[in-house]
């Protein structure tokens, strides 16, 4: 245990302070080409014609790629979880967001590549875009995908849902129902280092890809899918990343430079501009979250209903996963014995949205914590008392019926009160994470503590779940 409590030197610390750390853009190779992309200026359009012939004849240009150059153009970011491939690396007959890639040029200098991009001819037929997730069900709204504007988790069920306890009864017996709508907006992760990649075709036919990915093997898998090669044909070099914050999980620069390197037979580097990073890379999603709580006058939460509309943008990427996590966390750190949570992944003509710090949970926490304050205000109750009463204790169950063996909500709340100079009354300060007893174990929580055994999990086809699943 030499390192615990010690100041351990960073293995890359001296390299960082001497400028010797090599980020992707710091590598250059003889004969290396630079990439520049033609991106969609429109949020929604049919692509009628793309003519790259003038660009191909420009000085210094070694390769121009469009969708037909990509061995498998349409790939999904989470196919390994059964989420269908939906996103073209390069646009085919349509574009669905501003900034979507249409063609990419590799030339001897960045300036030559840019000049060639400007020489590509494209003809669009503009369509009305769809942006407002609240209108996803309105007839007559533009349809983002051939399957509509809502993603279906299962053939018969669009939403990610969680059900626990008797929600109807909770809302029937409640003294008050408190409702709120929360709409955290899109955020760009804005790493200091823009997305970059350098792909090198080795003499033995393998590809070396220098990547800014936060998830190197994940990016390798997606690149291999686009190229239709086994991952063994690829060597990914990474690990020195100039910040990611979720945005560098998405994999775009690696397969694009790989296809260009294969076509040009030269190393190809692509470094996004700050504008591309801000406008065309994925963002944290905008969310629309509605919460209704059934509460008693003395501050117990009996039940909660939620409706979340997640703006996935134009393609799925990791949205289905983010929404699962979001839904599982909609009780926050509190014991809610009856839950009906519904989360919909809505496709829009915004840039695709993806991970950023918390990945679906941050939006849930923002909505839940803001709503707790609203409940306290409606009840005329101290928000610390409301939180401490309802905070998870040993034996409470999560919305997905996980029994909490070692919750820390009470400890955390007391520490937060201390840190912010809040003087709590003695009876609140005396609270602990331990099992509920006495006044902290009202009748409605007795049942939810027993619920896991009363409602064994079953698979969707009715088979009982394996022993220990609940």
């Amino acid at each position, binding site marked *: 245990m*030499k*390192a615990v409590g*010690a*100041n*351990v*030197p*960073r*293995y*890359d*610390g*001296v*390299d*960082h*302070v*001497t*400028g*010797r*750390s*090599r*980020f992707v*853009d*710091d590598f*250059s190779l003889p004969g290396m080409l630079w990439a520049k992309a033609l991106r969609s200026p429109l949020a929604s359009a049919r692509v009628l014609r793309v003519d790259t012939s003038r660009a191909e004849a420009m000085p210094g240009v070694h390769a121009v790629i469009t969708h037909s150059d990509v061995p498998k153009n349409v790939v999904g970011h989470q196919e390994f979880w059964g989420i269908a491939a939906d996103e073209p690396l390069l646009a085919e007959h349509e574009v669905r967001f501003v900034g979507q890639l249409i063609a990419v040029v590799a030339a001897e200098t960045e300036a030559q590549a840019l000049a060639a991009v400007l020489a590509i001819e494209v003809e669009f037929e503009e369509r009305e875009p769809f942006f407002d997730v609240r209108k996803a069900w309105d007839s007559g709204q533009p349809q983002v995908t051939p399957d509509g504007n809502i993603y279906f988790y299962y053939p018969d069920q669009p939403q990610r849902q969680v059900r626990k306890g008797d929600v109807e009864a909770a809302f029937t017996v409640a003294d008050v129902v408190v409702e709120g709508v929360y709409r955290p907006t899109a955020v760009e992760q*804005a*790493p*200091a*280092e*823009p997305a970059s990649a350098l792909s090198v075709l080795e003499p033995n036919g393998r590809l070396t890809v220098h990547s800014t990915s936060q998830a190197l093997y994940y990016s390798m898998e997606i690149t291999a899918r686009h190229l239709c090669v086994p991952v063994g044909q690829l060597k990914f070099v990474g690990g*020195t*990343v*100039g*910040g990611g*914050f979720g945005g560098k999980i998405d994999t775009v620069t690696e397969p694009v430079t790989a296809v260009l390197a294969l076509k040009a037979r030269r190393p190809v580097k692509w*470094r996004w*501009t*700050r504008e591309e990073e801000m406008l065309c890379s994925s963002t944290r999603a905008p969310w629309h979250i509605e919460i209704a709580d059934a509460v008693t006058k003395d501050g117990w939460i009996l039940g909660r209903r939620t409706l979340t509309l997640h703006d996935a943008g134009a393609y799925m990427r990791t949205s289905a996963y983010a929404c699962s996590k979001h839904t599982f966390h909609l009780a926050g750190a509190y014991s809610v014995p009856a839950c009906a949570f519904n989360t919909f992944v809505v496709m829009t003509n915004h840039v695709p949205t993806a991970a950023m710090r918390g990945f679906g949970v941050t939006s849930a926490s923002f909505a839940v914590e803001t709503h707790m304050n609203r409940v306290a205000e409606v009840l005329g109750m101290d928000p610390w008392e409301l939180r401490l009463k309802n905070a998870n204790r040993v034996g409470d169950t999560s919305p997905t019926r996980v029994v909490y063996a070692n919750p820390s909500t009470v400890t955390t709340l007391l520490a937060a009160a201390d840190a912010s100079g809040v003087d709590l009354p003695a009876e609140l300060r005396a609270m602990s994470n331990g099992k509920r007893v006495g006044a902290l174990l009202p009748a409605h929580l007795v049942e939810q503590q027993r619920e896991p055994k009363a409602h064994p999990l079953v698979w969707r086809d009715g088979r009982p779940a394996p022993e220990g699943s609940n």
Partner: protein
Amino acid sequence: MKLIVNGQPRTVGGNALTPLLRVLREELGLVGAKAGCQHGSCGTCTVLVDGQPRRSCLLLLGSLDGAQITTVEGLGGPACLSDLQVAFNERYAAQCGFCTPGMLLAATALLRRKAGPVERDEVVDALGGHYCRCTGYVKIVDAVVAASRGELLGKMAVSTLEIRGAEL
């Protein structure tokens, strides 16, 4: 065009409108200065020009004939780190490392301008135009203040290699 880069006279080509950042990175192979935004907004490309911290992405070669340029590579190699480099390393002021060269050069200019201890608000003022998305600002300010006072710990408890050897 002649430049003095990290004390060495260098002759560089390129036209007068080439940004200094490109000359450093692509012609001289000095990649310590980073292309974070190429707008003069983020500070990752900062170098010293005749002792002053300047954004090399906005400086055009034509205005620099005979100028003295200092990049992070000129501050000190692994065996002869400057006090600032030591302080940044041992106080964990470099997180992802991308903004670090620019921060170091702006801080170097501050400590050369004002000998002796500096106050936190002077550091914040000197580094105000530098973006650290890892939001490690507190540790960066700590490191500059410590270096100005000569408060170097100088003894990281154990080396990483030592810990690896101990099979942590």
